[in-house]
């Protein structure tokens, strides 16, 4: 079957949910970041899908958004990983359950 936009979107939704699962259930701080990257990837997929299935117009906005999104994701991953290392240095743990100093 030719994949309709709906199918692609559903795949993207599944990827998104999986990313959410990873972010919510992992204990290690890194894996929350991994989950977020997966969610971002799913969003990129969405954009590209919509670009593909829509009447083309100058400029190719979907592509542009995806490119920028990748760039941002990279920057964010860098900073996030630096944060994890800094936190590890200070608290000697990457277990988010134990990183609850902001408890009110």
């Amino acid at each position, binding site marked *: 079957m030719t994949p309709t936009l709906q199918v692609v979107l559903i795949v993207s939704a599944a*990827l998104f949910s999986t990313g959410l699962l990873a972010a919510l259930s992992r204990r290690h701080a890194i894996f929350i970041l991994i989950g977020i990257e997966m969610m971002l990837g799913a969003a990129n997929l969405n954009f590209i899908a919509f670009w593909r299935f829509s009447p083309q117009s100058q400029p190719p906005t979907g592509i542009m958004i995806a490119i920028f999104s*990748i*760039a941002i*994701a990279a920057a964010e991953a860098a900073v996030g990983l630096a944060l994890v290392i*800094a936190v590890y240095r200070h608290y000697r743990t990457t277990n988010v359950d134990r990183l609850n100093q902001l408890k009110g």
Partner: protein
Amino acid sequence: MSSIAFVLIAVLTLAAALAAATLQKLMHATLSFALTFVGVAALFFLLGAEFVGLALIFVYIGAVAVLVVFTILLTRRDVEKDRGANWGGTFLAVAMFGGLTWAILKTQSVAIAAPHIRALTVRRIGETLMTSYVWPLQCIGLLLTAALIGALVLVMEEKR
């Protein structure tokens, strides 16, 4: 595009993603993560956005996954293993998937087939970046610079 290829690639991607979310061993999970993005890049290729797919491979697998491996190695003392999914998270993820699917299926306007398009050249991407999207491009440059500096500052050893 071919639907069989699509299905296969989709299944691969989702399996890898699930593996990344649930595997206990950290390294295995990281490598699954990389695999997920391979699948996503393949999907991009299928959808005709080759340049973006390549950029995805370069950035995510080339940079982010490697960074994650480095970080795991640098913060090794705590755990080798990590727990898998828990009930709350699973439920929420399933609910999210269910909700999204319902929304998608409900919308008739997205039940369309792929139209014929002109192939998107890199030249065109470049032209667009430099003309319509030049300001966002500059901002992204600034952002990347700031992220770089920020990351460095964060991990810098404090002067004693």
